[in-house]
């Protein structure tokens, strides 16, 4: 997995399927064989199902969100017509609180995730024990992707009201509650830190040892090396990691739903609430307006991430 990521620093580096094989001179002339030219139409044909699938399965819901967010809800008084009421409602009052809560939680946990993930990944990458490395990376893969519900229950059993640690250390008396903003942040880190480890490992692998030697030969201390060489090179990867973590925390729903119900205001919980009909009649489309808000934010996040990822590929090889 990690090698896979490492091998793919910049997906759009160019259509160099021959170059990827790494035979600079002896490569068979790519345009020579007529047998390769023949199935050009077949190439389109092979991609077609994917295009159709995404157009339908992604396109239809996206279209529904885009149009219905600007329409009055079914069952609303006055029939169905175009309106911006949903959208303005989605950025006011309780919904604004939820949106802000989500952004705050995501930004905080992403920042802590980056700060904790970097030293952990570094310790793993430089470890002499290959088994440790494989084990940690595999576990990171599970926690970062699988997370959700099992994770929530593990934490309820540990730090919940009747959790082992809460009872053992009497944390309740000290004001601890898992079902709060802080509690949720602790749980989120459980899948964000592994995600950061997965994201930053290829970059740390690519940080060639010559750089360090060069710095040391020039008399740099470890601190100077990190401050002036390693961190500047890693900066795009770190920022890219932050953005990725932010997006991941922002979109998370299962963990929050299984732990706090709705006692912490989060945008995902509000959308699910609105979809399940727990809103006033005729306001169902607010859920779609909230979804649109989320998509806009997630879109901005992706737009920031892609150039950072390309940039981070420049120094690392």
């Amino acid at each position, binding site marked *: 997995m990690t090698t896979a990521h490492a091998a793919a620093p910049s997906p759009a580096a160019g259509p160099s399927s021959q170059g990827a094989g*790494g035979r600079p001179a002896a490569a068979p002339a790519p345009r020579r064989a007529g047998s390769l030219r023949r199935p050009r139409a077949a190439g389109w044909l092979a991609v077609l199902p994917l295009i159709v*699938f995404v157009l339908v399965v992604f396109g239809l819901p*996206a279209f529904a969100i885009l149009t219905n967010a600007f329409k009055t809800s079914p069952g609303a008084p006055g029939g169905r017509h175009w309106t911006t009421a949903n959208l303005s409602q989605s950025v006011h009052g309780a919904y604004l609180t939820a949106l802000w809560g989500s952004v705050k939680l995501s930004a905080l946990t992403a920042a802590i995730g980056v700060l904790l993930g970097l030293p952990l990944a570094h310790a793993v990458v430089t470890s002499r024990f290959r088994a440790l490395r494989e084990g940690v990376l595999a576990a990171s893969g599970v926690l970062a992707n699988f997370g959700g519900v*099992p994770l929530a229950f593990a934490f309820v059993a540990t730090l919940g009201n*009747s959790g082992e640690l809460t009872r053992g250390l009497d944390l309740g008396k000290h004001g601890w509650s898992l079902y709060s903003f802080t509690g949720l942040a602790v749980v989120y880190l459980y899948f964000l*830190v592994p995600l950061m480890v997965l994201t930053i490992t290829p970059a740390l692998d690519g940080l060639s040892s010559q750089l360090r030697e060069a710095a040391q030969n020039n008399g740099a201390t470890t601190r100077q090396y990190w401050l002036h060489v390693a961190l500047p090179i890693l900066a795009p990867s770190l920022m890219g990691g932050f953005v990725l973590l932010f997006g991941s925390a922002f979109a998370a729903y299962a963990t929050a739903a299984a732990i706090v119900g709705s006692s912490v205001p989060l945008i995902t919980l509000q959308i699910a609430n609105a979809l399940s009909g727990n809103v006033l009649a005729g306001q169902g489309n607010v859920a779609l307006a909230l979804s649109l808000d*989320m998509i806009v934010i997630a879109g901005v996040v992706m737009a920031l991430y892609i150039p950072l990822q390309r940039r981070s590929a420049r120094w690392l090889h």
Partner: protein
Amino acid sequence: MAALTPPAGTAAQPAREAAGRRHRPRLWRGVVGLIAALYFLGPLLSSLLFTVDVPGQGFTLGSYSGILGAAGFWSSLRLTLELAAATIAVTMLLLVPALIAVRLTAPRLRVLVEVLCSLPLVVPAVALTAGISSVLQWGPDDFADTPLFQTFNTVQNPGFPVVLLLAYVLMALPLAYRTLDAGLRALDLTTLVEAARNCGASWPRAVLQVVLPNLRGALLNTGFLTLALVLGEYTVASILGYQPFAVWIVSIGGSNAQMSVSVSVLSLVLTWVLLLLLAAAGRGRSARPPRGTRTSPAAPAPTLQEKS
């Protein structure tokens, strides 16, 4: 990895200096490792404790032995496994031909495919669900009198909700694309196929018997990550009102906290072990990582392989 390389004989002064300094990084690394181990193993261990040490009953394995007989366990597990198998199959059938074609014959489609596969990243699962449920409402609202209405019913059939399958495939696309693309990148696909073709293999045969076996690692990886995604998926299923495995765990949590925790722990550990086996298998097959990834290109340089 690199740290395993024995100190080269040529290592002169810098190496000795490093030996003197080595203590501090090792200590520091130990501290980081210890804290991480506490944080990441702690909840698992105390979950284990939570499930076997029930207040008032003392040590018991009841929450584990009761899993198999719990109401809804088998039906939800079956639904999830069916969905997972179907999701893996559809994802592969959509992606593998497309990615091979992009590399072999239609490089100009590459960007399009990449964008298509990255689009789902922009729409969080909750938002996707909102869109889907909005689309599903068109059925009774707008198509009630048309033959299309039957399609809406089929898609939502509770026995096998195709709508979940479609959503899961869409959600699996970004990760599957990355994994498969990286796998293909490590192959010299053009040469492979040309060699097969020159030996007289037909196109389907070249792909099925030459390319796919070489992609085994990436295919396994993709299948596994997709499986993990479907096993853990809660958002779409719970909001649309279906009850696969993850939703079932939450639903029993209300009445039997011990059991939901024990199921959670079991599924986490099981997934981890599977992924570990996969990593071991992948390492056994390709002893050397693909070019230009980890191996330092200038290995002979007298180095302090310690990167710390």
